[in-house]
């Protein structure tokens, strides 16, 4: 059985089978597409259903379908192709969700980006009715990860999806939209410019045959591809029952990291994300933190963000205790400071002298008071600490 025959058999099946019908897809994965197609053709008498499938299958001219697709700028990528994204193979034995699972028969692809480049990529998904905050964060994250050489996969929908693609395009990095409808269609219509840019600089991908409409069940099947194509999934804004959460469920079933960007507790669009975080997802706030989760051990390690250092932070506990006992303006005697600090006079004297050396206390004729350097203003930032 040649690769070309296999590809044609897959095209034929693709024309008659809904995306994500895992029983059939599993059979194809196990026995090959040609075998399964021939079997279906032979089963013509068993039931009305089978008869219909067989009848439709007989009507398909896969070579003509491919030819038409090529003219529309689509290519057909199947398992075994050099371009085939191997991440999809993990779908073979994943427990179905909404009755959908399985390795797709192939992918219709439009655009210059090779899908095997998605070995280092991340899915950024979320609500279609996002807030400006959510779109802002999605764009930031997408832009940051492409800067580090990673790809961004999403669904080209309104809200977070388009923000993710936009951020990646702004960073001139690889980005792929996975559609629920045929890869030749523009859905939603308003995103015409986005689709044009994706077709020029990234890729538009679909499991559904060219021309097929975006139907609800196809979105559920599509989400499994977004999760499987990438190393991990980031959910930016999602209401409690958002479709974006099915993508994260798929990522979870594929044992890929699930990440969420937190929002305000009062924001309904943060509820879904917060649920996901409570169930063990990782909290991320930036592209760098996303990559820390996805990269190999020791790669993309971020430094913990912390408040600025204040001069007092650098003092020893004893010095700090003594400093706090020194009055701000009216000088006090050594004994008085020692009493207030509840420390021995000798210790206090030593501490005061060391503090005086740093300008934090001043010795006057009438005793000790705090100096100019004792303020708790943050130290000026050093350039080395990016």
């Amino acid at each position, binding site marked *: 059985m040649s690769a070309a025959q296999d590809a044609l058999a897959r095209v034929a099946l693709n024309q008659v089978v809904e995306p994500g019908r895992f029983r059939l897809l599993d059979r194809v994965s196990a026995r090959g597409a040609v075998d399964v197609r021939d079997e279906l053709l032979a089963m013509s008498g068993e039931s009305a259903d089978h008869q219909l499938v067989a009848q439709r299958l007989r009507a398909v001219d896969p070579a003509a379908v491919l030819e038409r697709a090529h003219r529309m700028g689509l290519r057909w990528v199947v398992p075994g192709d050099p371009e085939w994204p191997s991440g999809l193979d993990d779908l073979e034995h994943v427990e179905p969700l909404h009755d959908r699972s399985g390795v797709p028969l192939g992918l219709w692809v439009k655009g210059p980006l090779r899908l095997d480049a998605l070995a280092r990529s991340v899915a950024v998904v979320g609500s279609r009715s996002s807030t400006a905050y959510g779109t802002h964060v999605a764009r930031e994250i997408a832009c940051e990860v492409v800067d580090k050489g990673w790809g961004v996969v999403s669904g080209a929908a309104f809200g977070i999806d388009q923000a993710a693609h936009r951020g990646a395009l702004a960073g001139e990095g690889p980005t792929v939209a996975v559609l629920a409808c045929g890869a030749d269609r523009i859905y939603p219509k308003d995103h015409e410019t986005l689709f044009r840019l994706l077709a020029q600089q990234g890729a538009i991908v679909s499991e559904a045959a060219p021309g097929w409409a975006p139907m609800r069940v196809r979105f559920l099947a599509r989400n499994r591809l977004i999760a499987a194509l990438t190393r991990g999934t980031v959910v930016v804004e999602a209401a409690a029952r958002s479709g974006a959460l099915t993508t994260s469920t798929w990522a979870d079933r594929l044992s890929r990291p699930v990440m969420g960007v937190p929002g305000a507790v009062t924001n309904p669009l943060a509820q879904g994300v917060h649920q996901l975080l409570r169930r063990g997802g990782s909290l991320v706030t930036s592209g760098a933190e996303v990559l820390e989760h996805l990269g190999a051990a020791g790669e993309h390690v971020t430094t913990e963000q*912390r408040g600025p250092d204040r001069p007092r932070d650098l003092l020893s506990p004893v010095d700090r205790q003594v400093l706090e006992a020194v009055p701000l303006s009216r000088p006090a005697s050594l004994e008085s400071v020692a009493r207030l600090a509840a420390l021995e006079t000798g210790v206090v004297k030593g501490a005061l002298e060391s503090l005086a050396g740093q300008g934090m206390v001043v010795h006057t004729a009438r005793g000790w008071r705090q100096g100019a350097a004792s303020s708790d203003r*943050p130290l000026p930032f050093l350039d080395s600490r990016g």
Partner: protein
Amino acid sequence: MTVAITHTVSLQGTLGHLIDVQADVSSGQVALNLVGRPDASLNEAKERCRMAVLNSGVDWPSAKRITILLSPSDLKKRGTHFDLAIAVAVVAASADKPLAGLAGTVMIGELTLTGGLRSVPGVLPMVLAAQARGHRRVIVPEPQAREAAMVPGMEVLGFRSLGQVLAELAGEEVPDAPPVAPMSAQRLLSWRGQDRQEESDLADLKGMQDARFAVEVAAAGGHHLMLSGPKGSGKTSLAERISGVLPDLGTEEMLELTALHSLAGALEPGDDLIRRPPFSAPHHSSSKAALLGGGSGRVRPGELSRAHGGVLFLDEFPLLASDVIEALRQPLESGEVTIARGDETATFPARAMVVLAANPCPCGDFSLRQHLNRCTCREAARRDYRRKLTGPMLDRVDILRHVEPLTKPEARDPLAKRESSADVRQRVTAARSRQASRFEGRGWRLNAQVPGPQLVAEWRLTDAATRRLEDELYAGRVTFRGVVRVHRLAWTLADLRNVDQPGLDELETALRLRSGEPLLAATLERAG
């Protein structure tokens, strides 16, 4: 002739009173009396007029008792523009035959000792007042003839000297006279925004989608707006472009605004009617008098009035003196400034859109994101600064927006729709004309100006939206004052979207605009 009457105008703020100048020249103890509550500067008119008349080659009745009454007498009068009317009245009273042209003519102008006619501030509002009282002919200093002619239906005569005026009134040939100097420049504050706004366009700005949308809404409904964000995030650049999205002023507004500028002495001889909405950006160290009006001597309109019909931008708003902030509260609500001083009360219109900008802290470098935070302020200083931000001023601001510095994905966004000011102006104009036709015959033009009770009673939201807004109120998320403001904003959004009654969608956006919460992405996309 022993008595003659001429007419001129006295101004109290923008309110003009017609003044009869009555001169009586008769026998008796020789004296020159000016009565009718003139102030010190006006009392000097006696000397100016006498010398001006003599130096124009006309007789001054020096051997007579001259009484000049400025009627009505109870009104306090101030200014030098009475000179011309006084001099002409005295000359007419002592002349053998009456001056034919006196009836129905209003005279405005200051005299020099040589008989020259000098420019005075406030010619436009004076001529407006004269027109309102049925006068159709006005004599003004030559450089201000253009300004006076802005008033429709007035016959304007511009002259250079007293001699020319007398010749005209007597029906003789008008002699030549040397040109007179225009009024000395009296600009109270620099107008740095005025020149720059001509060249700046919204299309130059990157990012800030959320704030751009807020600007469009604010402009459409005349709402006050507050922009907060760290320094360098583009608050000023955005504010400077707001007057560019406002439509041209209406005829009435043009006259009002030009009259205000005339009062402020800010109108140059060549200036035309002001057609574009003004932009004024006084510095935060400005005094109460500079911002709201007042000053020593004549009461002048402040920057708030000079931005009437346009935009007053207060950058670094928390740095304004506390008494200035206090004083701003009332005009922001009522749209006018009233200055009472002694027995003088002046009212100036002040319906400017006020745009406040504030940094997150005094140094302007504070950021919630630790790696961007460069703030060096003390915690106490930050708290003090923020206390000024909240409080009563914020309650009078309809829209609150946070602006963040431009990020890379925004700067290089290949899908950004950078609309020009003209595109936005088109939508704003359409929304404003919807409001104008809805409020036809009422005393207001924009949603922001509708009094709360009328708004709630006459222009309701859909039932579902009303219920939702009530829920927000009872849940304590909106104050009573806030409810009215949200209601107004919802109407402006409906006007922008060409919707007949604001519904849940408009209300949701209005609530977010008011509270400072981020908008829904769909709202921004829908806006274009």
